[in-house]
């Protein structure tokens, strides 16, 4: 009897599944027919909601959806998560293209090579490598890349840090020599080097005695590692923490040690209200709108989205945390921002830094022969190193004086 009942139940289950499955498919098709005007776009994400890095992209995607809706373009986003590299990225790209997305954005550097292999099979879909540089150089027309000029935001965030340090010196909390910034870095990668150098130069412009320690974690994001590294930097004498890594643990570690902090990607004042002064971030809203609008209007998408920074709103600073920031920071930030936007102030002004005690007279921007060493396009002219000028992806990789790397080999 029990056996019979079991079989009966099983059969009933199977039928239920089958029946529900088919009815769902039917309703799905009906919906698709009614809302044919929706523009589908996809994003392949290196992480998920848990990473500050990815949250910054979701915020922009939502904002872009809202802005485009006002223009009469209805956007529907589809995300895939947690695939930093390799075949899973190709699978995601295919899946999104098959799902009818007109544009597929890949939000991390390591995803681009695989994205490019898929792109040739879907010539009508635009594949965008965000923070990448391989798409505009390849032979395909439907692959594009973008990297807003984040070094401008880094510099400005550095100014806020410098003001804080100088304030601490003026208040007698620290001596001039003790103005050491601790910077949690991901890898010794051009993007990171460009970022921390711009940050340091910003800080030094307001606190001339500032020096910096950079310690790499060998990962784009690892909450435990980031916290430990921030702690190590503080133990080494850092009195202010900043970061180029994906989580908020450097901020919370700074707060636990009573040390101020400057963040990246998102405002970290909510998790560390007594420490985090401000964050710089790339606001991808403009770019998302630009790409989607171009596709809808049948216009060509620029293959390299270059020279879009503070002035265009592609790079922004989060709200200033007045409780921690030095008095008068807001006003100084405003005036420095105006100077950067007008071009009066160059972030990598060669008169403000030295390499091995010498002023930099020449440095190449691009690599043309594929050996990963820059060999063309003189970046130093008119008294400054021109970052993100010949291509959007950062190429400033000089090791300037005043910055000490705690480690270099990681992995």
């Amino acid at each position, binding site marked *: 009897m029990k056996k019979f009942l079991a079989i009966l139940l*099983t059969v009933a*289950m199977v039928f239920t599944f089958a029946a529900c499955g088919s009815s*769902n*498919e039917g309703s799905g098709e009906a919906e698709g027919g009614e809302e044919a005007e929706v523009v589908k776009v996809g994003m392949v994400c290196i992480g998920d909601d848990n990473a500050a890095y990815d949250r910054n992209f979701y915020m922009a995607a939502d904002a872009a959806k809202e802005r485009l809706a006002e223009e009469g373009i209805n956007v529907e986003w*589809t995300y895939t998560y947690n695939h930093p590299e390799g075949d*899973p990225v190709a699978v995601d790209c295919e899946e999104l293209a098959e799902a009818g997305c007109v544009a597929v954005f890949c939000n991390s550097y390591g995803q681009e*090579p695989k994205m490019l292999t898929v792109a040739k099979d879907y010539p009508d879909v635009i594949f965008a490598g965000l923070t990448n540089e391989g798409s505009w150089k390849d032979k395909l027309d439907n692959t594009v890349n973008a990297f807003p000029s984040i070094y401008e935001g880094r510099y400005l965030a550095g100014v806020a840090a410098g003001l804080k340090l100088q304030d601490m010196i003026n208040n007698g909390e620290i001596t001039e020599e003790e103005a050491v910034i601790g910077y949690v870095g991901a*890898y010794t990668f051009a993007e990171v080097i460009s970022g921390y150098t711009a940050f340091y130069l910003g800080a030094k412009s307001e606190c001339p005695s500032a020096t910096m320690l950079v310690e790499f974690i060998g990962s784009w994001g690892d909450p435990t590692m980031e916290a430990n590294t921030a702690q190590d930097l503080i133990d080494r004498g850092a009195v202010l923490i900043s970061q180029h890594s994906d989580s908020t643990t450097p901020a919370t570690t700074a707060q636990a040690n009573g040390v101020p902090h400057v963040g990246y990607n998102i405002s970290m004042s909510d998790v560390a209200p007594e420490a985090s002064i401000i964050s710089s971030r790339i606001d991808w809203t403009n770019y998302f709108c630009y790409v989607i609008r171009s596709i809808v209007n049948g216009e060509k998408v620029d293959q390299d989205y270059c020279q879009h920074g503070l002035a265009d709103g592609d790079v922004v600073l989060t709200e200033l945390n007045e409780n921690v920031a030095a008095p008068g920071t807001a006003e100084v930030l405003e005036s420095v921002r105006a100077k950067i936007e007008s071009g009066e102030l160059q972030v990598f002004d060669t008169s403000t830094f030295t390499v091995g005690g010498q002023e930099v007279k020449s440095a190449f921007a691009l690599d043309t022969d594929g050996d990963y060493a820059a060999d063309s396009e003189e970046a130093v002219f008119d008294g400054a190193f021109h970052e993100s000028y010949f291509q959007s992806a950062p190429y400033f*990789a000089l090791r300037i004086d005043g910055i000490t790397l705690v480690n270099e080999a990681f992995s």
Partner: protein
Amino acid sequence: MTEKVPLIRLAKREDMARSRIWLIRLLAFVLALILGGLVFVIAGADPITAYSTMVAGSLGKVTGIRQVVKVAVPLLGTALALAPCFAMRYWNIGAEGQITMGAMMASFFALKMVNAMPSPVLLIVMGISAALMGALWAGIPAFFKAHWGTNETLFTLMMNYIAIGIVGWLQGGPWEGKPGSQIIPMFDEKAVLPSVFGVHIGWIIVLILTFLMYIYMTKTKHGYEIAVLGESENTARYAGMDVRRVMLRTACLSGGIAGLVGFMICSGADETLYQTVAGGVGFTAITVTWLAQLNPFAMIAISLLLAILSKGASTIQTTMGVPASISDIITGIILLCMLGCEFFINYKMIFRGHEEHPLAPTTAQNTEVPGVSPEAVKEVKA
């Protein structure tokens, strides 16, 4: 009889009808689906939509099927690699490292020797070198086990971390592309496996391997030796077999196949080498091997099932916003139920006071462990 009888006793059973065995398996699967459905409910998703989306996403269209096959290929290949080891009761937990080292060797030729030979030759060299490297990596713990009786479970496990560490070093060091990127450049097209029906030809290779492994395990002298050694080392020795030799040979064969799988992943799927090239396949394949009860053809079905689950998981993550970890939990539940039901197929529970015939021959002294190949047992008895 004054001794207290335990509430539940376990007894080996061998008399179950085939139809009943399959009924139990079906029930276990249904139970797993219901338990998984509960997890979906807790995660805030409609279980029926979730399951149907998983099936539609993995089998509903050509690209889905291709991706399922792509995921199944390394699983099947590695399960095949593990089968002879497990039949011998040699616990090779090191497939992960053997895959990684095989992929590393293949990548060496793909990156450094790409201009030295034409594409077909290059691919063959990559495959052979990967198999040799995998065999070497598996041979080290086997050598120690054969000569000094070291614990192969721990040894092969530790070898994994060394292999992954070596590739991590190459990725950030000598083979790194753009400085600081920690990424090895993509292979030249010459070093990429060609595709048939939209999937790299690894799928044909593993299907051939499945057939060969079946023959090897059931029809050859080697297979017989493995089965005997798996039952009892002393019996094998008494029968005049060179136990060390059989052990080393089998472990190297296993590692060789795993190395070949590494070649297929890096050359066919990733088109470059990552530290995570094995990506847990070496461990998941252990489950595949056991679920298939060492039967190569059953492994095809099991690895496809796992691939469907994995593909379905990413589909529901994209379309329904169900976190991938929820899908991982459900996959885990399904595997646990499927493995668990084998217990009820192989053993029966006797409750206190319900002994049908306490001295029945079914409670005999057979010490068979669930999962050991029926063929192997039969041959030993023969």
